[in-house]
Each structure stands twice: as structure tokens, then as C-alpha cells.
């Protein structure tokens, strides 16, 4: 092949495709966060109360908090293996803007780990006796909110990828920063249950996503440069 350089669009597609392929070939990285999601949610009726009226009150919160934790646990597969085999350094050295590489990488990661969580969430919400009118806001909220969680998680992962044991530290760094998404996401469900419109909250979640899309890759890039050097 000739030494032709990829444009921004081409590099974006290449990174995106690579991320999908890597995750597709290590199914554990996709399945384990989902299993955690299912198991952790099913602990609440067991440890709390299986009474449907009690469960329906906490259902949205439980699904959201567990999804947040599952996203945190899935972040390990975003940079860890790339860091260990040196491809992260190649990514940082590439002539195309790092911003787009990282955007594509996180987008691919979300598609393989975040989207399955969103698809699985109605099933778990049903097991927690969530009232019918709350499904739409729950799914829309998770659909708009989990990419933001992935982007925030990627900042934390980029900061800790150079450390030997980063799991707990990652949670300490990232969970406080994820709180607005959680508040607006569960707020949507509460509003729907109270018969109020929730479009304003969707807009707020969308605004957080746009902010994260525009700023998080910069922070991720700066953090990766520190971790790799």
C-alpha cells in the first residue's frame, strides 16, 4: 500500500472500526458489565423488600445508579489493553487530531457497552415493577445520558491507566462528577410519574452531552499524554 495519509474522516472511521472490532473479539468486556448490571439490580429486591409498591418507588433510581456503576466498570477495556501493548502511544503520535481519535474511540466503546445497557434496562425496570408511563423517559434518559457517563468515565480512566490498580480510584474520581447526569436522568422519570412534562430535562441532559462531547476529549487527551509519558 502506498504511504498515503488518512484524512480526519478516514482516521475517525478507522479508530471507530478498530474499537468495535477489539470489543467484538473480547466478548467478556461486553458481557461482564451487563451481567453486573443484571445481578446488582436483582440484589435490591433481595436485600430490600420485594413488595412491588416499594420497588416501583426506587426502580428508576436503582436502574440509573447501577447503570452508572456498570459504565464505570466497563471503562477498563477502553484504554487498558491499548496502554499495555503500546497502541495508545501510536494513537498519541498519529498525525490526525487526537480529539477525533478519542471521540471515535469513546463512541465505539459506547456502542458496544453503553447501548446494550440501555437496551437491557426496560427488562430490569419491569422486574422492579416500574409503572408503564415511566419507560419512555427512562429509556430516552439513558440513551442521552450514558454517552456522557462514558465520556466522563474516559477522563477518569485516562488519568489512572498508568497505575497498576485503578479500579477504586477510578470510582472515587468519576462518580462525583457523574452526579448531574444521574439527577437529571432520574428526575425525568419522577416528572413522568407525577404527570409533568420532562422535555426540559431531556434538553438539560442533551446540553450535558454536548458539553462533554466538546470538552471531554481535550481532558482525555491531556490525561493520556501524562499517563503514557
Amino acid at each position, binding site marked *: 500500500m502506498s504511504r498515503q495519509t488518512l484524512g480526519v474522516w478516514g482516521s475517525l472511521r478507522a479508530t471507530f472500526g478498530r474499537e468495535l472490532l477489539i470489543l467484538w473479539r473480547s466478548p467478556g468486556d461486553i458481557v461482564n458489565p451487563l451481567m453486573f448490571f443484571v445481578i446488582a439490580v436483582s440484589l435490591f429486591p433481595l436485600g430490600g423488600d420485594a413488595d412491588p409498591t416499594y420497588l416501583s418507588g426506587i426502580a428508576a433510581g436503582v436502574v440509573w445508579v447501577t447503570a452508572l456503576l456498570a459504565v464505570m466498570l466497563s471503562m477498563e477495556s477502553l484504554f487498558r489493553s491499548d496502554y499495555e501493548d503500546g497502541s495508545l502511544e501510536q494513537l498519541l503520535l498519529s498525525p490526525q487530531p487526537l480529539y477525533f481519535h478519542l471521540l471515535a474511540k469513546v463512541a465505539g466503546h459506547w456502542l458496544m457497552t453503553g447501548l446494550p445497557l440501555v437496551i437491557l434496562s426496560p427488562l430490569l425496570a419491569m422486574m422492579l415493577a416500574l409503572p408503564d408511563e415511566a419507560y419512555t423517559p427512562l429509556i430516552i434518559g439513558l440513551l442521552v445520558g450514558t454517552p456522557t457517563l462514558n465520556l466522563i468515565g474516559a*477522563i477518569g480512566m485516562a*488519568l*489512572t491507566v*498508568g*497505575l497498576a490498580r*485503578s479500579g477504586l*480510584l477510578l470510582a*472515587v*474520581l468519576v*462518580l*462525583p*462528577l457523574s*452526579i*448531574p447526569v444521574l*439527577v*437529571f436522568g432520574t*428526575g425525568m422519570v419522577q416528572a413522568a410519574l407525577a404527570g409533568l412534562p420532562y422535555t426540559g430535562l431531556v434538553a438539560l441532559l442533551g446540553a*450535558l452531552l454536548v*458539553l462533554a462531547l466538546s*470538552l471531554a476529549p481535550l*481532558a482525555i487527551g*491531556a*490525561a493520556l499524554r*501524562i*499517563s503514557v*509519558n
Partner: protein
Amino acid sequence: MWQWLYKLGSPRHFYEMTTSFLPWLKGVTYFLLIVGLVWGLGFAPPDYQMGDNYRIIYIHVPTALGAMWIYVMMAVMAAMHMIWNIKVADMVAKSSALVGAGFCAVALFTGAVWGRPTWGVYWIWDAKLTSFLILFFVYIGVIALRSAFDSETSGSKAASVLTLVGVVNLPIIYYAAVWWNTLHQPPSELSLSSQGANPPEIWIPAFFTGFGLIGLVFVFVIMRTRNEILWRERRAQWVQDLVKQEEGRA
């Protein structure tokens, strides 16, 4: 002016300048704190609604404001460290993190103690309380991240990035919490007449403790930064000379 600022960026000059300046700062700080506390706790009139238990305001409000502003200072220092690679800025940021976490903890504790007689509970999931709890978590995260690195340079750069991420995120967290739940009273207005809700006899001591605690922030931060300078520059000639001098005096 610029040269003076520029010199402050050198660890040695920072150390020498603060050596002459610190005793004065300490004197003023202790004076303000003692006057404010004795006046506020002993002589200011009781509040017509809350009686004597409002007096914790003399500690609670300044520490809470301090906890927020220390974060801003830490973020400015982190930015200076990231942009111009000024080492003293990073040392100040490192020193501020623990002082900020401490102020945050004191604000939370005094708030809980004050909440019990006035609201009937120690803790409530109210916007201000929650956002201060989260601010405390963010401080802890910055400290934990820095200490997780073996290498001083990587740790300080990583902590700077996290501090700057936090400064974008904290206002959002605050407004998310406000929208979520609000019980905490809004700040009451100051009034010059003694008939108002906040007569001068009550708020003047608060100014003393307020400025005293600001002074205390700088005393703590400067003292910790000086230790940090001595530690990081321990191989430099001027520090070794300093140690010999101290040993000669002892």
C-alpha cells in the same frame, strides 16, 4: 510588579519572601480570629429566632465560603502549572487541596451541628449540603489521584487535569442540586440599623472571623508550600545551607 510576580515563581524566592512576610500574616490572622470569636461568641446579641445557637455562623459561613474559594485558587494554580509549568503553582495547588478538604469538612460538621437545633435533623439531602458533600468528594479525589502516582511530575499533572475538569463540573453539580432539592436558607441581607434581621452587632464580628479565616487559609497554604519547597529542593545548595544554619543555631 511583573518582576515581583515572576520571582514568586521561583521556589527559592517564594521561600525567602514568605519567611519575612509570614510572621506578619500570622499576627494579623490570630488578632482577627481572636477578636471575632470572642466578640461573636461572647458579646454579640442573641438572634430573636434562633437564640444563641446561631453563633456557629461565625465559623460555618466563612469556612463554607473558604472551601469554595480554595477550589478556585487551586484551579487557577493548576492552570498555571499546566500552561507555564510553574512548579511553585503546583506546590500551592497541592497544599490547597488538603486545606480545602479540611475547610469543607469543618463547614459540613458545623452545618450538621447547627441543623440539629434549627431544622431538627443533623443531615438532610438539601442542595447546599449535597453540593458541599460532593465538593468534599472532589477534593478527596484530587488528593487521592496525586498520591496514587509514584512520580511527582505525573502525579501533579494528573491532579491538575482533574482539578480543571472539576472546575467545569462543580457549577453544574451545584445547579443540579439546587434544582433537585432546596431547604437551606438563602443568605440573609446585612442591615446597618440595629432593627433589621442582621444588625451590625451581629455581622461585624462575622467580618472579623471571615477575614481571620481567609488569613488562616493563606497561613496554612503558605506553611505547607514552604515545607513542600524544602522537600522538593532538598538537594539544592540553598536548602542545604539553610539546614546547616538551623543546625548551627540548635
